């Protein structure tokens, strides 16, 4: 890789970083507005037009709150917990392909932080690190409720990561690659009959796997109906009971970054990532419209980025919609669902996929 394209890639990483933060910021706003609308209310509408400055006001509030340390808490770990949660949440967005590559003459800029051929494994590794942030924070606060929340988070993540991994294996059997970019590129026809572009998405080949994956994604991001680690009716605030000011803000923020990453991964794996229907017609159209080849390609790719983000936003909306619809699971129900239903189903899904591949029904 030349020095110049390395610089470009660094820029992309920064942009991805900024965009994840921005989206997480406005997730806090969207969550409240959506919650309000689902309950026939109005939601925040005081700060700025439509309350759009609300996240800003929240940040100011959190930064000016008292920095509180419980007595007997391990101070270093107490600070380290939320930092780790935030870092791991942000790190996983690095390998997600938000678009194909842009061309400027000889320079090629991939719209992806880093392209590695084990992208999926990388994400899994980081996500399982993420639970340390919660565990360390919960343990270091020297509070029984926090500890219980932390333990719940740990066991929940372990249980559901298993089912999630098994659901993914079925996708990987079809793609034969761990690279998220490859998986995306496979979910389209290169030319040919274009209306069926949508039906190349994995969600149509892996419906069962997708259901398992999305249920696990809810559990991994600790979102309702699986938000047992913070379960305010039983555990006060769960692992962040003792946290105040921006440390608390980091925890809440990390949750939204996680939701963003989870939906991004979901759209890459199951919804064709940056592919969109009629994309090659669009490219043909651009080429015929008299644009230079580079610019036609770039516009085509940027539309893909828009498509990707539309998929992500739909996913985030779905996460919030579910949160304000379903009640929380009980802990034993959660464990039973994970171990006795999702894991066997995921294994069945692998067998099914294997059979279908062997008999060339799907590939």
């Amino acid at each position: 890789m030349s020095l110049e394209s390395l610089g470009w890639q660094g820029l992309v990483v920064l942009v991805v970083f900024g965009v994840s933060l921005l989206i997480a910021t406005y997730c806090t706003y969207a969550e409240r507005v959506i919650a309000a609308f689902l309950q026939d209310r109005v939601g925040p509408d005081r700060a700025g037009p439509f309350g759009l400055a609300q996240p800003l006001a929240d940040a100011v509030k959190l930064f000016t709150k008292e920095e509180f340390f419980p007595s007997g808490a391990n101070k270093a770990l107490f600070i380290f917990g939320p930092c780790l949660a935030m870092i791991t949440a942000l790190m996983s967005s690095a390998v997600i392909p938000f678009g194909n590559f842009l061309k400027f003459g000889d320079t090629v800029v991939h719209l992806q932080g880093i392209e590695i051929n084990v992208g999926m494994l990388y994400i899994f590794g980081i996500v399982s690190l993420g639970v340390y942030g919660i565990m360390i924070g919960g343990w270091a606060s020297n509070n029984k409720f926090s500890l219980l929340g932390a333990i719940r988070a740990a066991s929940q993540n372990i249980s559901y990561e298993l089912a999630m991994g098994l659901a993914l294996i079925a996708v990987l059997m079809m793609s034969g690659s761990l690279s998220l970019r490859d998986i995306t590129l496979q979910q389209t026809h290169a030319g040919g009959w274009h209306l069926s572009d949508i039906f190349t998405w994995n969600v149509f080949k892996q419906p069962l796997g997708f259901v398992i994956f999305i249920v696990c994604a809810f559990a991994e991001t600790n979102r309702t109906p699986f938000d047992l680690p913070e379960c305010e009716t039983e555990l006060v605030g769960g692992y962040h009971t003792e946290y105040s000011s921006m440390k608390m803000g980091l925890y809440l923020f990390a949750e939204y970054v996680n939701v963003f990453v989870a939906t991004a991964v979901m759209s890459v794996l199951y919804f064709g990532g940056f592919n969109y229907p009629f994309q090659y017609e669009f490219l043909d159209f651009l080429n015929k419209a008299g644009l230079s080849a580079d610019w036609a390609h770039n516009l085509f790719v940027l539309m893909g980025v828009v498509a990707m983000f539309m998929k992500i936003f739909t996913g985030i909306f779905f996460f919030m919609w579910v949160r304000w619809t379903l009640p929380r699971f009980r802990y034993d129900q959660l464990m039973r669902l994970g171990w006795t239903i999702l894991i066997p189903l995921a294994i069945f899904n692998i067998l099914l996929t294997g059979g279908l591949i062997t008999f060339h029904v799907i590939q």
Partner: protein
Amino acid sequence: MESLSNRAKKLEKKPMTLAERAYLPAIFQGLSITMQHFFRAATKKQITVRYPEETRPFSPVFRGLHVLKRDEQGRERCTACGLCAVACPAEAITMVAGERKKGEQNLYREEKYAVSYEINMLRCIFCGLCEEACPKAAIYLQADKMAPPRYERDEFIYGKDRLVEPVSPDNRSKRGIQLTPEQADKLRGQLA
């Protein structure tokens, strides 16, 4: 046990069907219900009252902030009999009685009047018993005013300055009061 009304419903606990056990159909049903609410709210039928701009109408029998009434000639009706204080279950009312001086007949209706009269709005439960107890129809709970929030506790002790129905010294003729200049000054001082 015999049921007292015949409205009791017999509940049977049937084993769940496969669709019920799969849980997903129920989830989609729930999701569709919340989505209906989403669109209802998005098309501006929210139930929220945007408070400072909109207010809800008070009920006509609402019991709000007290007022000490004056009579038709603008004289204070209260005779400091203390019945309201006795009736008050929250012991929110205190008063000091005084004798009406000569020349004050235009200020106080009875020979005895309340020199000071205080209601502690933090103690008051707005039950309206004081209003019922008063023989002189002097104290009422207004249906359109609430005791507003304040920062300090002692600001909740309402004295005569805030309780007595206001009459401005300048429109006294309209209310039929004849004040001497000194009395007008005193009243101004009270109102200030």
